[in-house]
């Protein structure tokens, strides 16, 4: 017998009894109260929890996003160069309105210091962004650069993780290769349990909410 057959056969020993005693599988989630509420409350909670996780949060109307990015970079002294994920929603923004910004479109490499990507949803329960890889957005854009700026339409803030995942795949649709809930910057406590920011991923996560 193959290893597969052996393992499956072993797992079937006593399986009927286990199935009889375990409760039936159900996909109805148990949500904390924090993951429920009206849109305006969810937005406030998203911002509160994202800040708690160590992200920074700004907001602008769509046409003001390039200027908001430029202002953030100069305030934090992070230079003027960004690598932009070529999503239509990002490329179509009025980048000429921020003349100091040097925008390259494409996949980030080791020399790039700031990436700008579009997030799919925000989960208010922990201030988490849901991002995904795809034909336009390289997954490296979420983890390779020292600074990650994520642009999220305020209307895409939902309560819990399940609702965010529904935005990603619709009703039972296919998953992208990589989908990540990002909550604050990269961190560790591996050296003497000292909290430290920026191990392998971004040292800074800046969330720009797009107001309608």
């Amino acid at each position, binding site marked *: 017998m193959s290893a597969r057959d052996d393992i499956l056969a072993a797992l079937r020993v006593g399986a009927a009894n286990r199935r009889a005693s375990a409760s039936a599988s159900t996909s109805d989630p148990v949500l904390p109260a924090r993951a429920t509420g009206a849109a305006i409350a969810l937005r406030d909670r998203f911002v509160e929890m994202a800040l708690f996780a160590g992200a920074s949060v700004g907001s602008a109307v769509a046409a003001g996003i390039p200027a908001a990015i430029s202002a953030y970079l100069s305030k934090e002294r992070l230079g003027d160069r960004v690598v932009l994920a070529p999503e239509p929603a990002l490329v179509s923004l009025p980048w000429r309105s921020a003349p100091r910004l040097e925008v390259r479109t494409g996949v980030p490499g080791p020399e790039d210091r700031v990436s700008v990507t579009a997030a799919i949803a925000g989960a208010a329960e922990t201030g988490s962004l849901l991002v995904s890889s795809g034909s336009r957005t390289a997954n490296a854009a979420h983890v390779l650069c020292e600074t990650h700026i994520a642009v999220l339409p305020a209307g895409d803030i939902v309560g819990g993780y399940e609702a965010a995942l529904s935005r990603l795949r619709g009703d039972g649709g296919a998953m992208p290769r990589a989908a990540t809930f990002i909550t604050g910057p990269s961190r560790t406590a591996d050296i003497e349990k000292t909290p430290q920011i920026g191990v*392998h991923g971004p040292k800074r996560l800046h969330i720009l909410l797009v107001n309608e």
Partner: protein
Amino acid sequence: MNSAARGFPERAAAALADPVLGAALDKLQGEFRRDRGAMLSRMPEFEALRDRAMTVRNYALADMDGLLEQFERNVIATGGTVHWCRDAEEARATVTRLCREADAKTAVKSKSMLSEEIALNDALVDAGIEPVETDLGEYILQLRRETPSHIVMPAIHLNAGQIGDAFRKSHSDRDSGRDLSNADALLAEARATLRRRFLDADVGITGANALIAETGSILLVTNEGNADLVHTLPKTHIAVVGIEKVLPTLSDAMAVVRVLARSATAQEITSYTTLVSGPARTDEADGPRAFHVVLVDNGRSKMLAGPYADALRCIRCGACQSLCPVYGAIGGHAYDAVYAGPIGAVLTPALGGLERAPHLPQASSFCGQCEDVCPVRVPLPALMRRLREDSFRRPDIAVAGRRLTRFWSWAARRPALYRPGLRLGLAMLRLLGAHRGAIRSLPFISGWTGARDFPVPEGGSFVEKWHASGREPKR
């Protein structure tokens, strides 16, 4: 490992005498208690989230065979491959073969307890493939040739000075006069060193925190973001996973996510919680060309059919280690097992055989904090108690006090003999302790009294007190 030559009692004694370890463990457990309290006050529904996570893990274990088949179908549908391995040897051979087929010289790895369990790194080295651990703690341990001493804080037993020494010795191309005296300098050097390794690696090896049957996805959680670089930059991604990790749906995986980081580090969620489904699509901007999931049994299917199946619910958060008074006194290495602490005291004998870890189920005060804190309510004290019963019945396993316990058991079932015997014994103990108020040594249990005083008994036996109270036992 040298410590394997000695027994658990000797390793525990050595650990108790180590002041660096003692300070580290005090800090770990003190801060965990404090931070977990703060987490609970932020999340009033935590008990309901634990119940949900336990229910999910239970129905997933009950359906493991069908769920694994469904998972396999969906991995294939996304363009990936599933490999089944009965034991550690098959798993090592499979991963090594996949690395060879990818012409790999180096493999970057994110933290995986399963890869520790199957001693994967040794097999890769033997095959001429250099494994590079990228979780900061695991990287430090790899440089020092050590094993993790805690499930989620693997290098908790080390201080910054020891880490600096390891960096100085291993990163020999750097300026020898550089300052490595603080955590920030160590972190900057690790980031720069490992960044090059990420970019050069041929294969990325991860574990998985869950397998999701409905989508063929694997769940990866990290705080550092290293797993995301591991599964994104190299051309081949291999995930090595225990079969018990399978869950039916994404919603079930989120139930586990809601308790995992809260129990591991008292965080709301880890910085990166990722679902990986297959290799890069044909039009994808980056990502690996090949995606392999190596499913490993290594004792799990047998355990599922036996009395220790509840421990398969474990989601590897390490909370039982972070609160256990025994772990807090001796640390993880004294257990000389991949999984230390209360969960290790159950998993190690349940997966690998009691004869390989006879002392571990004895290493508990049965205070019950491990069960109180477990996010999936594994009844760890009951499982350890059952392992003790198993040990007692097995003549090949040395159990301290077995003859004394047998004698007590024989006598206790003969009240006409036991009661006068007990009265005589209590009188003798009172006599022995009359001067000091405590008894410093006793025959038959000199090992126990070697480190403790035996209290002088006060009053009579329980049965005498019961009768004196005028109550009758309930029938």
